[in-house]
């Protein structure tokens, strides 16, 4: 059974929870350290993140660029709003497909849970047009935009 849950809340939010066998500090770092992000926020096999700018302070910029090595790619930009080390990250982000999608607001929290961490991500759903665009764009593999979307868009 999957360790992840994904539920909708009202008509405009998606709540994702996931347990990790590591400390809140480690999971938090994996969300803000570019060298670590580049190792996991990749989506489908074969995609890489050659550019990862992540200025983790309030107002700091985010820019992730993905590539499939065959000339296809997309990117995401965003800004950090709030950071509470090892506990909480609030940021906005938008995908560029290549036109920017509307801003999406995401709050991610990290709580000690047993010997590990419970991460909860509360995402604002993109509007219908954005979701259609996401579905229509690069969906051959089903998830090119992957986490970005997730994390971002939603």
């Amino acid at each position, binding site marked *: 059974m999957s360790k992840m849950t994904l539920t909708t809340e009202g*008509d405009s939010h998606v709540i994702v929870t996931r347990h990790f066998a590591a400390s809140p500090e480690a*999971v938090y770092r994996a969300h803000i350290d570019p060298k670590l992000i580049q190792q996991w926020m990749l989506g489908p096999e074969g995609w890489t993140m050659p550019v990862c700018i992540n200025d983790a302070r309030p107002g700091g910029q985010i820019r992730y660029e993905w590539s499939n090595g065959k000339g296809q790619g997309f990117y995401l930009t965003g800004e950090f709003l709030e950071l509470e080390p090892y506990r909480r990250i609030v940021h906005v982000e938008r995908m560029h497909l290549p036109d920017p999608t509307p801003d999406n607001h995401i709050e991610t929290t990290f709580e000690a849970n047993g010997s590990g961490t419970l991460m909860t991500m509360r995402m604002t759903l993109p509007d219908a047009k954005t979701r259609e665009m996401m579905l229509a764009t690069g969906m051959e593999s089903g998830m090119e935009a992957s986490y970005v979307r997730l994390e971002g868009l939603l």
Partner: protein
Amino acid sequence: MQATLDAAFAALADPTRRAILARLAAGEATVMELAEPFAMTQPAISQHLKVLEVAGLIQSRIHGTKRPRRLSKAGIDAMDQWLAMLRKALEANYDQLDQVLANIEGKKRGEKR
């Protein structure tokens, strides 16, 4: 069908509407049949049906003086598809994150030695 996912999510946010959908999953039903299990008037049920119809989740047809409703597969599929895509992408990334975290923890233990 111009269903929007927004409307679909809004439609599903209401417990009465979810119950109506669950009933319709068992087969076509008239407004009267749908109103029966709920302590609601037919106009109130009709209002919920209208929300579900605009969201593309149900369809109606004319049958004499009645307009029986049934589930619209397209509407429900659209929403499922979107959530399934999100779920799949997140699960793949988090499985990779598990590996990254295992490496971090392993390194930490190594340093302490």
